[in-house]
């Protein structure tokens, strides 16, 4: 049986991508999934469904808010928006991620020693 962690990159990565995407423009679940897939050039083979628990988590922490609306294809959909707290959280997470990435890059950098 696959464990859920394998579907995610590292803890918090999916949430970060969701927040980043939604900060640009509010989207409903399906559009969000397609957008993340597309922009990552299908590199991230995430299951579309794994978005939903992440969305619930963000809703519960009030980093996102959701409203029912009508999509471009005329469906009743729930459209997700980043809250002010969400924006702040994203900033914080991105800077943390960059620091971490910087650290990893240094360690992995070839041959200075």
């Amino acid at each position: 049986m696959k464990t859920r962690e394998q579907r995610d990159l590292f803890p918090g990565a999916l949430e970060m991508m969701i927040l980043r995407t939604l900060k640009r423009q509010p989207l409903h679940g399906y559009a969000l999934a397609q957008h993340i897939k597309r922009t990552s050039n299908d590199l991230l083979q995430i299951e579309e469904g794994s978005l939903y628990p992440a969305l619930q988590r963000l809703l519960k922490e009030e980093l996102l808010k959701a409203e029912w609306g009508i999509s471009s294809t005329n469906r009743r959909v729930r459209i997700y928006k980043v809250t002010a707290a969400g924006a702040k959280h994203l900033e914080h997470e991105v800077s943390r991620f960059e620091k971490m990435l910087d650290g990893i890059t240094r360690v992995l950098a070839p041959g200075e020693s």
Partner: protein
Amino acid sequence: MSWLKQLFSRRRFYGELSLEIREHINERIEELVAEGMPKKEAAAAARREFGNMTLIEEDSRAIWQWPTVESFLSDLRYGVRMLRTSPGFTAVAVLTVALGIGANTAMFSVVEGVLLSPLQYFQPDRLVMVWENNPRFPRVWVSYPNFLDWQRTARSFQQMAAGMEQGVDLTAPGTPEHLNGEEISSGFFRTLGVELALGREFFPQEDQRGGSPVAIISNRLWRNRFDTNPEVLGKYVTLDGVDFTVVGVVPSGFSFGHQYADVYTPLGRSDPLILNDRAAHDGIFTLARLQPGVTLAQSQAEMSTIQNGLDQLYPDANRDLGIYTEPLKQVVVGNVDRTLLLLLGAVGFVLMIACANVANLLLARSAARTREFAIRSALGANRLRLVRQVLTESVLLSLAGAGLGLLIATWGVRSVVAAVPGILPRSENIGLNAPVLLFTLGASITVGILFGLAPALRSWKADPQASLKEGVRGSTSAHHHAHNSLVIVQMALTLVLLVGAGLLFQTMRHLWDVNPGFDVQHLITFKVGVSHALTKTPSSTRVAYQQLIGRIRQIPGVQAADFTDTVPLSGQGGTMPFWIDSQKPASLQGAPRLAMFLTGPDYLRTMGIPLLQGRFFTPEDTTKSPCVMVIDSIFAHIYFPDSDPLDHTLSAGFSPVGPCRIVGVVGHVEQWALGDSSAYIQNLAYFPLYQDPDQWVPLNYPETTVVVRTALDAAAIMPTIKATVYGASSDQPVYNIRTMQQIVWESMSSQRFPMILLGTFAGLALLLASIGIYGVISYSVTQRVHEFGIRVALGAGKQGIFRLVVGQGLRLALAGLAIGAAAALMLTRLLSSFSHLLYGVGASDPLTIVAVSLVLAGVTILACYIPARRAMRADPMVALRHE
């Protein structure tokens, strides 16, 4: 969002979530169809890309939940549903648990009420009893002058009080009645920390010789004789012919020691023969409350110092006397604690057997539910959740069982207490109270988890792939292993219980065969409160008693009758120091002891005790004639091995009587207990009632019991006897009417009580174990129907199949019996409290073990019979067609 709002808006929210997910998939399908994919394929692709819908929805919901509680509730709902779908299984399992838990709850409530719960006094753990002791006895009744000295000097105690049980005849108000009474020192109730319901305790000036006659009465007496009149204080009760003023009423439910007393009178008014004699140790006990911060050991040390001082001051009376302090509770509980704990252990075995049964049932059912679990696990349910589900179901079962078990326990407790009346101290304290209910709850949850473990582990290991494959019967060998080991354990436990019960049964049988030394049949005993108008002086008392026994002898049907102050095996009787001829020992405390019977001349003939040498007493042995005594055969054997006892004299007592000539030797009588060969005083002596010195008459005569030999039934002759006694004087109560057979029967209660309970538990164990082995064999037959069919097709005879099945059962039973026999041998030896109870049979009696094993093997064959019959009918065609 507050959690409360969450809780209420959730149902709508869940609906929105599934809608959202559904829409997501529909949108994807549409898009794929628009790209030219056929609708069916598009639907499959959309779902594949999305992932496990159910699980994702569940996970998304879980974020909003208080997860453990909610999944527990849903497990609970599911569990109830599952149990209801298989009512037969549920009924058997619940009933099994109910028997196990019920028996345990009943037994625990006895242990709780008698041993664990605190005494009903203020800070009861600070209460101690102070005894004297000597080189021969660990506890000796206290000398009253010594008590007064302790009370004055001891610093370890806040209060100290003394008391003595003393029966009294109440003649007014109302009809004459003999009552249990207690003579107590002033401060008795204050020491216990008990508030009287009405009135006051005795003043110190009332608690002495010549103090005004005052009494405190029980709540029962207040109710029965005074209609609970609040004006009772100042009214009179006539006790032993003296009018006592009621000054207090004891609160209802109060009791002290082993008997329920109806009347309390000042100890200081008691007989001066006992109170003034420092050498007298005659029934007085001492009670004390420890000072805060003082330990039992410290008080013991202080009291020993005080006693040493007294010993030096009064060497004649006190030489060799020591002190023994012990917690009051230890005295009240006595020695039943070991028996009770033994029985609690035994009943624990029954619960384990019940657990094994339910575990087996659950295992068999979990095999049947393999597919259900496989499907749930394939759908993404995680293992922990499945295990939790299985455990929830089993705990649910055990709780249902416990509910029913409580009903069994209420009935069981009543039967336990009624089974052997009088053996359990504090039995009024036994009931299904809060600690007992807590025990039941804890026990049932524990056993629920215990018997749920095997199937839970099974579901943990379940491989969904394997069990989903059609037609595979699954790997059942490990499974059989579990079944088999559970049955073996059951058999072993049952054997241990049966051996225990068997040994006690043998003990009872041997005790019945013991010759008590007298003829038990056709004997009736009772006491008479001889009218106080007739017993004003010692000589008039002697006449009154002689006339009374003369009247009783005249009654048609009475073959013989006489008085004795001690009835063998009734628990009465004490010991006293003695010496032969003129060899008076330096210290009476350290001197050898005898047990003395004060009897009338016809006692020997009435009891049917054989005369071996010389003569017994005659009516001519009176205070005016030379003092005589009679000894028993053991006395003669121990102390006169080489000489004729009739050539010697005997002196006996702390205030010695004698020297008296030994005029006869009679057969030995079992005085303390049947089959009691312990080192306790076995040498008995007899002294003529009518030779008792004047000063002892008021003390000793009222203690006597009438023994009557008659061929008639007690019920037939007692009315005549009562009429005769009342005819002589109407204020003479007749009480304590018992046949000698009853007395003998009751004397065995310390063995009978555990035998009845252990027998019941063993029977229960046998029943459960036979159901267990039946279940396993019958399950295995169902599993092997195929195999049997093939065997038959290949030419196996029906007998062969029968033998195969019964053989399987017997193999299990034999393994269990071997383990059980080893365990029984070890346990019965380890438990000293158990071997203590046995008589005439060793703790590792091979006969008992073999007999019990045969019974178990027989039951096994019976239990295997039905499934074996079914196996014999296996149809080869059905089996082969199925392949």
